[in-house]
Each structure stands twice: as structure tokens, then as C-alpha cells.
């Protein structure tokens, strides 16, 4: 159990453990009592996990044990070869990418890479990229475009890194460049939010034909903490901000921004990795199949139309 909101489940499970011990020690038959409590655990889980608040999903999306980009690549794709560097300044480990085969065909995969522990997080800069990361991503996308293979992007970042060097090397331009260049790609582009989709740094891998989101992933213009402190002048109102900002996969689906929500095992992807790899695989294959019927120009047109249709405004006639 990883989260505060799971405490009631933990308490029931502890009770079961105690009863089991007590039964053995005193040679009693407590099967009935135990199975009653087990039923209660199942009910409690349903109650909690089927009614996760947006903030609870943020906690799940950020969880250190949640599968990361490299783990999805390893589980879902074959023959992955990682490629490094932006050819300009450095290799940014907060973004990974390369080529692999998927169902027998070559694809380019790019993703934000969070650390899997503290040491890894320092190397990966907590998945917050510098311009070098976005430029590496763009280089790999253009390579994919030349060799006519689909681009699959896995989004998992708090946002672009707010640092001095990042600004000096053109953080804004690197993100902006990706947006327009992705608009012009003539291969299928599928972006999947697997964890946190943090603002411009997420969008830099997100101009796509299909946007898919894991059930507990979030995608937001600003972190709930940031919105709470700016809009409500009180960072502790992050739960309300998370609610108001409409950041969950289901919210994005209803707003017509996400195309499909990928089911996660109960309680989150970390509870059953194989299950989440399978469901991501199935959903990805379906969307890639659908896009494979479009020619190069139609793919670009399809992406153009997808974004031109996003927006809710008024128009006086």
C-alpha cells in the first residue's frame, strides 16, 4: 500500500492477518469470519479505487514505483536500440528514444524518463528535460519521417526544467519547434500519457494523430499545487485545483482531447505491471492499425484537423 487513501484497505487486511494468526495459535476455525472480512476488503477496494479523486490520481501518476518509459519499451517492443544526443550540445537523459520493432515493423519510440530511485532521478533530472532533450526527440522524429516509420511518444514529466541553462539554450524555442515540426510529420504519431503530463514539456512530445492516456495518468496546463497558489493564493488547495482543472484521463476524453483511456489494473499500474503492459499494447496496436490506412499527406491533414477542432469559445453571428 502506497497511499494515505488506501489506509482503510490496509487496516482490514491487517485485521485478517491477525485473525489468521489467532486461529492457528488457538486451533480455531475462523474461516467464516475471515471470508467475511475478505469480502469487506474487496468491497472497500471497489469503493476506493472506483471513486478516485483527481488528486488521488495525481498521487498514483507520480508514484516512484509506477512503470516508466524504458519499462514499457522493454515490455511492449522488441529489439529496442537506444540512440543518444541532440547533435548540438548534449545528451539529455530526461528524454530517451530510439528504434525498435513493434509487431514486426520498425517504429521510433521517444519518451520522458523519470528516475526509478533517487540516484536515477538525479541522472534523469526527475524527467524534466532541457532543450537538449526536446531537440534529441525532434531529431529522432525527423529520422522516423525520412524512413517512414511511426512515431510513438510516451509522456511522463512534471514539465520542462525551469533552469538558467535551459533558458539560455532556448527552452521556449525547443518546445515551440517540436510543436510545429510534429504538425508537419507525415507518419503516424501516437502519444501516450503514462504518468504525469506536465504542460509545455509534455506537449513537446504530444502533437499527435492519437492521444491515449492511461487511466490514472494526468495531463494539465499547470500542476495542481501551482494552480492553487496562483489562482487560489493557497497551495494547500491543490485537491480543489486538481478537481477544477479537469486533468484526469476521463476528463480529457470527455473534452475530446484524449482519444482513448487505457485501463489500468485496480489501484494503479504498479499493482500489476504485466496487465498494464498488455492493455497498453492492445490499445496501441488498434490505433496504429487504424492510422496505417492513411497515406502520408492524409496523416498530416488528420493531425491538423484534430487540433483545429480543439477549443471551446463563443461566436456571435
Amino acid at each position: 500500500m502506497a497511499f494515505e487513501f488506501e489506509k482503510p484497505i490496509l487496516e482490514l487486511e491487517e485485521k485478517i492477518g491477525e485473525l489468521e494468526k489467532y486461529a492457528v495459535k488457538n486451533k480455531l476455525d475462523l474461516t467464516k469470519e475471515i471470508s467475511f472480512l475478505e469480502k469487506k476488503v474487496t468491497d472497500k477496494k471497489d469503493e476506493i479505487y472506483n471513486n478516485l479523486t483527481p488528486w488521488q490520481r495525481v498521487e498514483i501518476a507520480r508514484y516512484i514505483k509506477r512503470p516508466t518509459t524504458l519499462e514499457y519499451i522493454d515490455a511492449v517492443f522488441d529489439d529496442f536500440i537506444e540512440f543518444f544526443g541532440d547533435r548540438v550540445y548534449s545528451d539529455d537523459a530526461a528524454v530517451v528514444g530510439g528504434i525498435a520493432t513493434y509487431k514486426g515493423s520498425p517504429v521510433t519510440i521517444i519518451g520522458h524518463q523519470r528516475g526509478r530511485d533517487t540516484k536515477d532521478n538525479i541522472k534523469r533530472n526527475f524527467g524534466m528535460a532541457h532543450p537538449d532533450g526536446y531537440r534529441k526527440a525532434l531529431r529522432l522524429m525527423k529520422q522516423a519521417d525520412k524512413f517512414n516509420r511511426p512515431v510513438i511518444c510516451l509522456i511522463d514529466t512534471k514539465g520542462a526544467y525551469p533552469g538558467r541553462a535551459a533558458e539560455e539554450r532556448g527552452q521556449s524555442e525547443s518546445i515551440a519547434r517540436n510543436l510545429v515540426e510534429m504538425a508537419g510529420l507525415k507518419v503516424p504519431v501516437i502519444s501516450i500519457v503514462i504518468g504525469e503530463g506536465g504542460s509545455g514539456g509534455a506537449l513537446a512530445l504530444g502533437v499527435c494523430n492519437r492521444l491515449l492516456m492511461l487511466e490514472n495518468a494526468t495531463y494539465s496546463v499547470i500542476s495542481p499545487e501551482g494552480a492553487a497558489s496562483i489562482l487560489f493564493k493557497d497551495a494547500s488547495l491543490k485537491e480543489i485545483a486538481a478537481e477544477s482543472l479537469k486533468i484526469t484521463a476521463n476528463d480529457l476524453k470527455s473534452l475530446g482531447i484524449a482519444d482513448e483511456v487505457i485501463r489500468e489494473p485496480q489501484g494503479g499500474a504498479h499493482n500489476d505491471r504485466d496487465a498494464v503492459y498488455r492493455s497498453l499494447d492492445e490499445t496501441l496496436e488498434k490505433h496504429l492499425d487504424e492510422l496505417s490506412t492513411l497515406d502520408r499527406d492524409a496523416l498530416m491533414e488528420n493531425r491538423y484537423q484534430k487540433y483545429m477542432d480543439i477549443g471551446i469559445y463563443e461566436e456571435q453571428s
Partner: protein
Amino acid sequence: MLKDLFSKLNKKVNETDSNDGTFENSASIMTKCPNCKKILYSKELYKRLNVCTNCNHHLPISSTERMEALMDEGTFTILFEEVTSANPLEFPNYESKLEKDKQKTGLNEAVVCAEGEIEGTRAVVAIMDSRFRMGSMGSAVGEKLARSFSHATERGLPVIVFTASGGARMQEGIVSLMQMAKVSVAIEKHNQAGLLYIAYMTNPTTGGVSASFASVGDINLAETGALIGFAGRRVIEETIKEKLPDDFQTAEFLLKHGQLDRVVDRNDMKDYLGKILRMHSGV
């Protein structure tokens, strides 16, 4: 008697440190430059497009004033005025904030779009106005900008966007973030048609606007002294635990770091744009 005159004068000095920054209806005779503190004739300042005659500090200018200063007289028509903001996420208090800014500025959104001539060359021009919701980009701003590019693509015209924005409009959440992508796909269409896009960054250009259409002109210009950057200064200082230099994220800083084609004084704006447009117009 002399004393009297000064006190009278002082009463009429327009203190421009407030963010409002427009002078068109200003009745005051004198204006104090917030940078060099010199008292200037408002009339002179207005003639110089709100640029201090003493220290060249660029004071704020409204979108309306800029439009009039830039476009050839009688040649331009305002576009897409019918597009205004809704409240897509039903975000608390958003509508009343919009209403307040409409009253305050006389604008109905944070960008004004037009088609017209600059020194005889036709172009589509969009000017953001930071007095309206900090120039932030929601659905209406995104739609007006995307339409400006589409309009120009259909007619084979260049586009100039004057950016002035705090970034995405948070009250529209993810829908506002997606406007960055929306304007980008429209820019790419315009780009593939071989047409010219000039991004002209004015004070301030930050966040999601800086990280999208502001930075991807065929030519990127910025106005003297403008603040331009992705992350806020305070956020960066807190992250890196280091004090940043005074000129950090100014137009001049960006020029030094290779992010801009040129820094332009406001009073040279029309001249530069006219020339650039002319050099791209004859095929």
C-alpha cells in the same frame, strides 16, 4: 509663484508605474518615465509611441495604438471580433474576470487581428494585449490566431504576430494548453505554403506563448527591453538556488544567446517590417 506652477504640474503628472499603461485617453499633460524618472510631455511621449525620449525605455502600448501606428491609414480591417471566450471548464469566477477586463480595456479578448497594408504590402497582423487577462491564451485567443494563419494561407499573405502574454490561460486548463498545438498546426500549414511568418515579441512574452508561436517565426524579432522567457524568474531562482543576472530573459539577453534575429526599437518597427515584407513579396 514658481512653486505654485510645479505643484500644479505635479498633479497633472501621469504616474505610469501602474500596469494600465495606455495614454490614448490620458488627459494629463506630463508623464513620468518609470525607468529614468524624468518628467516628459505626454504629447511627445505619445508621438514617440510611448518610448521615453530621454532613456529609450519602452513603456506599455495598447494593441489599438500599435495597430494604428503600424498599419497604413485606412487600409486595415479588424478580423474575427465575433470570437470571444466561454468558460469551458466552468472554472469559478472566470466569467466575472473576463467581464472586468472587457470593461477595463474596451477589448473583447487578449488579441486583436487584422488584415491590411504595412508600407504598401498586405499582411495579416495579430497583436496581443497584456492588459486583458495578462494576454493569456485560452480557446478564443487560440481560435483567433489559428484563423489568422488560415486566412493568410488561403490568401497567400504573410503573418506578423506581436506577442504579449503571461502564457496559457489557466482557467481553461488543458484546453488552453492545446491552443499551443492548435496555433502550431495552423503555422505549419502556412509554412508549407511557402509564406512568411514574423514573430515579434513584446513585453512580456512568457510561458506557453513563448514556448509556441512566439519562438518559431521565419524571422524572430523582439522589442527593446522586452521580458521573454519560458519559466518565471522566481521559479528558476528557487529551483537552482542562485540569483539571476539583471538582464536575464530580456530581449537583449536572448539576442546574445542566439535566440533572436534582431532587437527592434518600437519607433523603427514599421520601417523594419515594411522592408522585410517588401523583400518577401515579389516572386
